[in-house]
């Protein structure tokens, strides 16, 4: 049993329950895998091997006493903007390089209560601003399918760790595509939940009207299981939905005949690689073969404005959220100046990377006197139009299906000097983020040896039908738990 790291979480759960191996053995196999490949993948900012083994021992006790959940003893990665008491949490930034949180985030409490094992804190673009992990202050992660290419971002470490066998499942966060785009580029499954499904208590804030935490795994079942674990109302995040949520595992193994699938024509435009187009066309045929009513006549005309709306609203919210990093209460502090204001300006100049500075300034500008109406207020009004178009579409369709990313993983360095070219990576994931809708990416084949992702968008809190269609597609295809040949 040397290849335990190849198992999905549900396969590992069966093995743990059947006493084929212990969580300590499973966790050690994953840690050995980390030791073997981490130098090439760099999925983690911090590997927490001692914590993992201790948590695995506790999990083995739970398994022995019959109080185990589907996540008990399962090794996972936790994105490094999810605060973990006593374990350094950096958000990929120099400014939080030595920050040791004094409390746990809600989602970490949830997975720990379920008995999951934390292997480490995964790499990410600084403050989740980026689509490649190249904006991490700790160096980029590498795509396990081709180490010269990016894994996507901002949850690139979380996706690369799952694909490379450095954990079985992981937690990421998604503001404009930061779970789905790296999941697509690394050939794994990732889900951005409905805004309000998962508490952000203890999540380093980026764009507060957009941020959600969500699961990444090697198949749809694992993603459903992990999302069930972290979902639900939390009084510490007043944006969480107080209504009870159905168990997503009920939506696995269902028949999808008659499901109405809308395919918006605005997503099939210039910039999409022919290889991506070919895999998406095949995926739509597969959905028809499953009995879905696939309609390619859907039009969402405001789609073209989603990128501008997002890149005004998210930086505006970020400029306010990141005002807290002033070098006074925690984090990096430059005290070389002679006044408090100098100290703050130097702290932020040396603590933040280029992309973070760019977005803070973009947001500061969009909110500043004389420009607020033209940028921020205008973007919020167009956001209303985008939402209305989605709601009109969901009157006719159960789900909307699109590509996740216009391209496969691109070479490290290819877009780093052109901020707008980097922003275009998110062109297919931004509209549903702006509308707060749940969306999942799952693998639908390879183009030039690199994974292509299919995105399924659902209506508010309708993750059930998204999971149902994704699971049916996965069972009909051949890309579940398909790992790269990273020797």
């Amino acid at each position: 049993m040397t290849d335990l790291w190849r198992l999905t979480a549900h396969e590992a759960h069966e093995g743990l329950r059947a006493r084929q191996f212990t969580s300590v053995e499973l966790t050690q196999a994953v840690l050995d895998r980390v030791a073997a490949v981490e130098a090439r993948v760099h999925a983690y900012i911090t590997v927490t091997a001692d914590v993992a083994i201790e948590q695995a021992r506790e999990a083995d006790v739970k398994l022995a006493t019959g109080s185990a959940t589907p996540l008990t003893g399962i090794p996972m990665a936790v994105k490094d903007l999810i605060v973990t008491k006593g374990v350094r949490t950096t958000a990929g930034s120099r400014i939080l390089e030595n920050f040791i949180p004094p409390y746990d985030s809600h989602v970490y409490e949830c997975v720990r209560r379920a008995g999951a094992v934390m292997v480490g804190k995964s790499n990410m673009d600084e403050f989740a601003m980026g689509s490649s992990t190249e904006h991490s202050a700790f160096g980029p992660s590498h795509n396990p399918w081709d180490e010269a290419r990016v894994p996507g971002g901002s949850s690139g470490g979380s996706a690369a760790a799952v694909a490379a066998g450095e954990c079985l499942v992981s937690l990421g966060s998604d503001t404009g595509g930061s779970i789905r785009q790296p999941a697509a580029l690394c050939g794994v499954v990732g889900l951005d939940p409905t805004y309000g499904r998962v508490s952000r208590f203890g999540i380093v804030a980026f764009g507060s009207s957009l941020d959600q935490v969500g699961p990444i795994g090697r198949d749809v079942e694992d993603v459903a299981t992990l999302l069930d674990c972290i979902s639900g109302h939390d009084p510490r995040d007043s944006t969480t939905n107080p209504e009870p949520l159905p168990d997503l595992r009920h939506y696995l193994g269902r028949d999808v005949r008659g499901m109405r699938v809308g395919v918006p024509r605005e997503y099939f435009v210039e910039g999409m690689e022919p290889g991506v187009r070919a895999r998406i066309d095949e995926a739509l045929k597969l959905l028809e073969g499953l009995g879905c009513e696939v309609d390619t006549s859907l039009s969402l005309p405001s789609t073209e404005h989603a990128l501008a709306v997002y890149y005004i609203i998210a930086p505006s919210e970020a400029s306010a959220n990141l005002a807290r990093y002033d070098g006074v209460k925690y984090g990096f502090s430059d005290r070389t100046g002679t006044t408090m204001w100098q100290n703050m300006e130097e702290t932020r100049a040396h603590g933040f990377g280029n992309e973070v500075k760019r977005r803070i300034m973009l947001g500061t500008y969009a909110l500043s006197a004389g420009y607020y109406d033209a940028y921020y207020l205008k973007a919020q009004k167009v956001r209303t139009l985008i939402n209305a178009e989605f709601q009109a579409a969901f009157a006719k369709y159960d789900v909307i299906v699109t590509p996740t990313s216009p391209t496969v993983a691109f070479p490290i360095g290819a877009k780093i000097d052109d901020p707008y070219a980097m922003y275009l990576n998110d062109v297919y994931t931004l509209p549903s983020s702006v509308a707060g809708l749940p969306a999942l990416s799952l693998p639908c084949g390879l183009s030039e040896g690199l994974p292509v992702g299919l995105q399924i968008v659902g209506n508010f809190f309708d993750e059930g039908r998204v999971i149902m269609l994704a699971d049916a597609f996965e069972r009909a295809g051949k890309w579940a738990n398909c790992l790269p040949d990273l020797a």
Partner: protein
Amino acid sequence: MALTNHDVLHIAHLARISLTDAEVEKFAVQLSGILDHFAALAAVPTEGVEPTAHPLPLSNVMREDEVASSLSRHEVLANAPQQEDGYFRVRGVLE
């Protein structure tokens, strides 16, 4: 929408980020380029459209005003860059 170096310095001041001369030049070009891509929004008709601040129809979420425990002074100060007598230490705020 071309931002001048002066505009960039003004924004950086509002954001409390000191910039080198080279950064001012670079950000003026990059931010102007990004803002050019946003120009198309101005042409979208939004007469009578309400702005969306938040995707869900939740507002004024209330709770009981109950006393609960908070972090200890020791825990709060544990990450402080400088502290003195149980307080955060900074340079003088007033001249």
